[in-house]
Each structure stands twice: as C-alpha cells, then as structure tokens.
C-alpha cells in the first residue's frame, strides 16, 4: 500500500499544475518542495512598499550579492524587494569549469520561480515541433501542435493570459483576455515598422497578468504596479500561490511538505517502476522515503535531471533512468544578450507620457526561416524580440535648483528590444554529478554547457535585423550591442530528459513518461527536445496538464 496515489516533486509552475490536475481528478497527492513555505498574501513582505521602505533602498550591498547570490543575481536577487525569493548560492552550490560558466538562477521556496517569473506566455507552433526533424538536430519531437493545442487553451483559460489575437501562424493565438495596451511610442513604431517591412509585426506581449477578474479563483485584474516579483495579493499574475495551489487545496486531496529535498528515486528494475521518493527534511536532516503509484517530477529542468542522475542502484554509478545514454544531455537555454534601441523623433508625442507601470511590453515574433531556409540566413531556426517603449526622466547635469527642476522633465520617447534566440540541442552540452557533495550529502550538479556557432550567428543577425527594423521605422540614434552570451542567463534552461518516440534516442515518451519507468512523468523543462525561441513556461503548463490527464486515465484503468 502506497503512502499516496501520486507524489509531485516541486511546486513551481509545472508542479503546481500537476498537483491541481491530479487532486481535482481525485488522486491523493503529496507535493514536495525543498524550499520554505510561502503563503499567498501573508508571505509577501515587500509588497506595496515604497522605495524608502526597502532595505538599502532596493539594492543589496555588492559584497553580500557576491557572497550569497553570485549566480542568482542574474535573475535579480540583488534587488531587496525580492532577494528572499532566490536561492542562496553559497549554501546550495553547483559546479562548472571556470571557462564554461552557467548562470543557474534558482528560487528556494514553495511556488518556485512562479513567484518571480517574467510571465510571458507564448504558444509553440508546428514549425518548432518540426524543427529537430527538419534540420536533424537533437531528438525529433513525437508530438505536434495539434496534440498540445487543446491543452494550451485549457491552461490559458485558467491561468489568465492577456494578449491580442494577431493571426500569425508562427505564434498561434490562444484564449486571451484583452491585452495590456501599447503606449503612444510603441504604437508609433508599430505603424511605421509594419508599413516599411511587411512580415515584421510588433504585437502586445502575451502575458499571465490578467486584465479581467477571475472572482471564482479569488483573483483580480492587474493594478499596473509592475512589482510582480514581490508577490501579488490581487493574484493578478499566475503563480502557484495565486492559482494552482488554492485549487489543489480546495479538493482536500493535497498534502504539501515544504523544506523537503528530494535526493533520488527508488526503482524496481524488474517491474520498471519507481517505488519510492527519497527525501531529506532540510531542517532536521531526517531522511525518509515516501511511496506512491505515480510520480510527477517537476523540480525545475536542471533539478529534475539532478534527481534522475542521482537515482542510482546500490553501488552503481549510473542512473537507473539512463538506458538511452541521453540522460543529462542536450542541455539548452535561450541566448538573449543582444540589445537594439532607438529614439522616436516626433514632437507630436512630446505632450504624452505614461500613467501606471505596465508589467509587460511589446513583442516582435520570429520572422526568420519561417518558410524554409531564408537565402540570406547563415543559421537555422530563429529568434524573437521582447521590448518596451517609454520615456525616461530627463538627465540634467550639474546641481541645485535648475537641475532639480530639470528632473521634472521627461526625455524623448524611446524603444528598446532584446532578442531571444533558439539554442540548438547539442548532445555534448551535459549535466553530470560531481564527486563533491552538498550539505545534505547530495553530489553537486556539474554543468558543461556552451553556446555554439549557430547561436552566435543568430545573435549577429538579430543585431543587424534589429537595427535595420528600427531605422526603417524612422527611429534616430539607433544603437545596438551584444553582451557576453552565457547559458542559463535567460532562465529558460531546458533539456536533459528529452522527449522522443524512440527509447534508445530519448528519455521520456510523448506522454512525458520515462521510457524506463512508465509511472514516472517528467513534465517540466527537462523534457524539452528543443527550445523554440519563445518563453517556455506556458508549454510546461500545457504538457503537465496533458500528462496528468493521461496519468489519471492510466491509473483508473489500472494500467499503472
């Protein structure tokens, strides 16, 4: 007799969805998270505070950042309005060779990154599900757009996605609430860009910040504070705390244990089944194994792979889930450190500014290699641009009364974009286990991941195309630059347990079940066989809900 029907490992975007779906379908579920408890509303200590009420007025001392948040800083951990939602890298380290840095930005609480994510919610299209098969990189996807489209609709309707229906085949429309409006500067650029360069589109970013209430969930529309990463008592943006956790709790089928690190899974090789989940209470160091009929592994992409790699038979050094030899391989992230910007030279906009702080911006969907390979493209696949228009304060020099009054003025309207580019799956971008262990005795995760030529060429193309678009739209002072592209930076790390039809060439099947253990479902970013160029969280939601539906059907027919 198992302790639970299902165990969900992790409580972020994917784990929260697994817990909601499985409990609503009647399963008794244990959800585990290594981090501390964070309750909706109660545990948002910086919400609503003015700059003068934030420690150090908002910026952690650099020495403290380097000591405790040397990697998490790339996700914003140095901002004291949100430091408490990030992992302490000194206490929970990982490893890489100095020449191959990986910026692994982690949370350390129930809710995971759902509390601090960027909330951009974009669908994949068939184009991207076909990519591996078409150009031969990585493991071909065993599913296509039609498999996941209804599940996109399902999760969008619940999560609350604001966006416009743009009718673009490379970025399918979904179940949208009205978009957060573009501002005057963005509309100015949109009109001129789309007229000057047919095929280029400037659209509202589709984002999990609601513009309409969901009273049935106790959630209310966005108040345009743009302080999402502090937590939102309105529940205006999708998070585990605002959305999936209340739904799961409502069923009375959920047991939630925070402060429980999962170190590995027990495995019955003969029956190809996961038989237990090994945990350590991070406060007491007490070890305990929990059992269930099925397990949903949603610990975040890299951590899920970490747990799988550390699931080794007694005395063995190889994971029991690695019969394909591909566990921990094909690690990916988006590259994103290409920036383009320009100034709008139109005095007609001088009398306009913005009111409120919109938590999102505008998006230029992929336009490269859409219809076969572009003749002038020296790379495969493509990229999109995330950006925002607005006016900064004027920056008068000097001091005294004139400067103070000068600061009451706005500078010109500007717009800026960052490219987000697809990273190809490379078999030798890998995670392995270190011989060093952490404070709980778990081997450190070791990253050996680099971007390659295709990513570099795409970033160069994005810089050229970005400048060309802004110039064509009539902007002036157009500029651009690239910073060092370091994997992990986009916080879109994916792969390591890639999905595929062939058990010899992939780790999970088209229902996210491990080929080596059909009662184990890996539904977070670990399962991704390629990255597309769009933000991935919405796809994790849809894959998780789809897999949960499948899992419950299999449980109820005693197939699992």
């Amino acid at each position: 007799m198992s302790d639970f029907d299902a165990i969900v490992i992790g409580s972020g975007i994917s784990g929260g969805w697994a817990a909601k779906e499985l409990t609503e379908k009647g399963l008794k579920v244990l959800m585990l998270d290594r981090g501390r408890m964070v309750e909706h509303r109660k545990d948002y200590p910086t919400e609503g505070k003015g700059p003068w009420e934030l420690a150090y007025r908002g910026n952690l001392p650099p020495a403290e950042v380097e000591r405790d948040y040397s990697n998490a800083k790339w996700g914003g951990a140095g901002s004291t309005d949100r430091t408490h939602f990030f992992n302490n890298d000194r206490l929970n380290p990982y490893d890489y060779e100095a020449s191959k840095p990986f910026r692994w930005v982690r949370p350390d609480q129930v809710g995971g990154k759902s509390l601090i994510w960027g909330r951009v919610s974009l669908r994949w299209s068939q184009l991207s599900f076909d990519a591996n098969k078409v150009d031969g990189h990585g493991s071909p996807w065993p599913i296509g757009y039609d498999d996941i489209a209804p599940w996109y609709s399902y999760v969008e309707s619940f999560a609350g996605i604001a966006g416009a229906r743009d009718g673009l085949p490379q970025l399918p429309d979904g179940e949208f609430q009205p978009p957060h409006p573009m501002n005057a500067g963005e509309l100015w650029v949109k009109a001129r860009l789309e007229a000057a360069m047919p095929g280029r589109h400037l659209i509202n970013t589709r984002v999990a910040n609601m513009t309409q209430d969901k009273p049935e969930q106790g959630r209310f529309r966005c108040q345009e504070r743009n302080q999402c990463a502090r937590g939102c008592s309105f529940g205006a943006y999708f998070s585990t705390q605002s959305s999936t956790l209340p739904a799961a709790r409502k069923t009375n089928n959920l047991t939630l244990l925070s402060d429980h690190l999962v170190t590995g899974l027990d495995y019955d090789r003969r029956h190809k089944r996961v038989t237990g989940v090994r945990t350590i209470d991070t406060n007491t160091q007490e070890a305990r194994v929990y059992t269930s009929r099925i397990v949903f592994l949603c610990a975040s992409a890299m951590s899920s792979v970490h747990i799988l790699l550390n699931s080794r038979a007694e005395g063995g050094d190889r994971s029991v889930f690695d019969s394909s030899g591909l566990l921990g391989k094909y690690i990916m992230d988006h590259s994103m450190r290409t920036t383009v910007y320009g100034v709008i030279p139109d005095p007609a906009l001088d009398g306009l500014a913005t009111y409120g702080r919109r938590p999102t911006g505008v998006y230029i969907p992929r336009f490269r290699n859409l219809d076969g390979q572009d003749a002038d493209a020296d790379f495969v696949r493509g990229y999109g641009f995330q950006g925002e228009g607005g006016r900064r304060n004027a920056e008068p020099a000097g001091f005294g009364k004139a400067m103070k009054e000068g600061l009451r003025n706005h500078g010109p309207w500007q717009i800026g974009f960052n490219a987000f580019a697809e990273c190809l799956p490379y078999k030798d971008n890998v995670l392995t286990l270190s011989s060093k262990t952490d404070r709980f005795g778990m081997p450190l995760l070791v990253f050996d991941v680099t971007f390659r030529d295709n990513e570099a060429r795409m970033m160069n193309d994005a810089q050229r195309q970005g400048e060309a678009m802004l110039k064509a739209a009539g902007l002036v002072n157009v500029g651009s630059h690239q910073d060092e592209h370091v994997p992990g930076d986009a916080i879109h790390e994916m792969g390591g347990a890639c999905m595929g039809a062939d058990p010899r060439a992939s780790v999970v099947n088209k229902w996210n079940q491990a080929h080596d253990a059909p009662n184990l479902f890996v539904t977070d970013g670990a399962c991704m066989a390629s990255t597309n160029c769009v933000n991935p969280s919405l796809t994790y939601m849809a894959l998780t809900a789809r897999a949960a539906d499948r899992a419950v059907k299999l449980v109820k027919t005693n197939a699992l």
Partner: protein
Amino acid sequence: MDRRDLLAGAGAFFGVSLALPLARALAAPGFAASQPLFTQDQQALVAAVSDRIVPATDTPGAVAAGVPQFIEMMLADWYAAVDRNDFLSGFATLEAVARGRHDRAFAAITPAQQDVILTDAMANTLPALPPRFFEHVRQIVLLGYYTSETGCRQERIYLPLPGRYDGAYPYATGTKVFSS
C-alpha cells in the same frame, strides 16, 4: 473575497499609515547606519553638500528628506572600504578647500561660496579630489532624495496602486513626474 474589500484593504496597506512597520524596519539592515560613521563636523558637511545639490524649492530639499542619514548608512554598510575611503577623502578635500579660501568650515560659508567650491569639484579643478568624486556624490544624493518618502511623495507623484495603465497620458513640461 469581494474585490472592493480587497481594494479597500489595499488602500490602507499601501497608504500613509506605515509608522509602525517603518519603526520596526529601521532596526533591520539597510535603513540606518549599523554604527555611526560621521563625526559631527562630517555630518554638517555632508548635509550642506546634499542641500546644495538638491536644495529646498517649492518642495523640500535633501536634508529634509533624510539624505545625509541615507549617505551615512550607504557608506557604513553598502560600499566597499576603498569606495568609502574615496568618499571620506573627497569630503575632507571640500572641507580643506573651504577653510583655505574662507577660513571657515564648508557648512559655515554662504551657499554662494559653497556653490563655487562644488562647481570647481564638478570641473575637477580641485587638487587631491578623488576622480569622479563630485559625480559620485551627486548620484548618491539623487538616489537618496528620489527614493525617499519626501522625494517620492512631494517632489514626484507616488502611485502605489495605479489601477490602470494609460500609454498616452497628457503631460506638460515642468510638471511633476511619477516616482518609481
């Protein structure tokens, strides 16, 4: 929960009555210097410099906004020792220049005399002044002022809960702008 209840609650939460949480917060790191850094003379000097950079106009100036205490906290607890020493040495130079020119402390000379010295500092014509000292002081005064409650609520317009986004909001040059 009824949405209006939540908004009413939020109004109180995000409103002005924050005396108690603030009092508690002041004991936490990052609000007041963990231990005094400035001598009385340095306090007077930093206050005088701050108020010349952001003077009182139709809104309060830097001293009324607590900027000197903010600078003391940042120098004591935020900056690395090398930067802290640059600041202190730069302030000492300003003091020495005031005494050399006017035989009085910087804080005791007239605002016009202070402005001449600060203008020289800005132009980097004062010997022994650490490089970019004036710009660093200017930046920390601006940061302290525009993140203070006075700067946010009086010099600028503070919107704790905008409730809506207007991307084409009428704005006339020289009127107040919104704080962060």
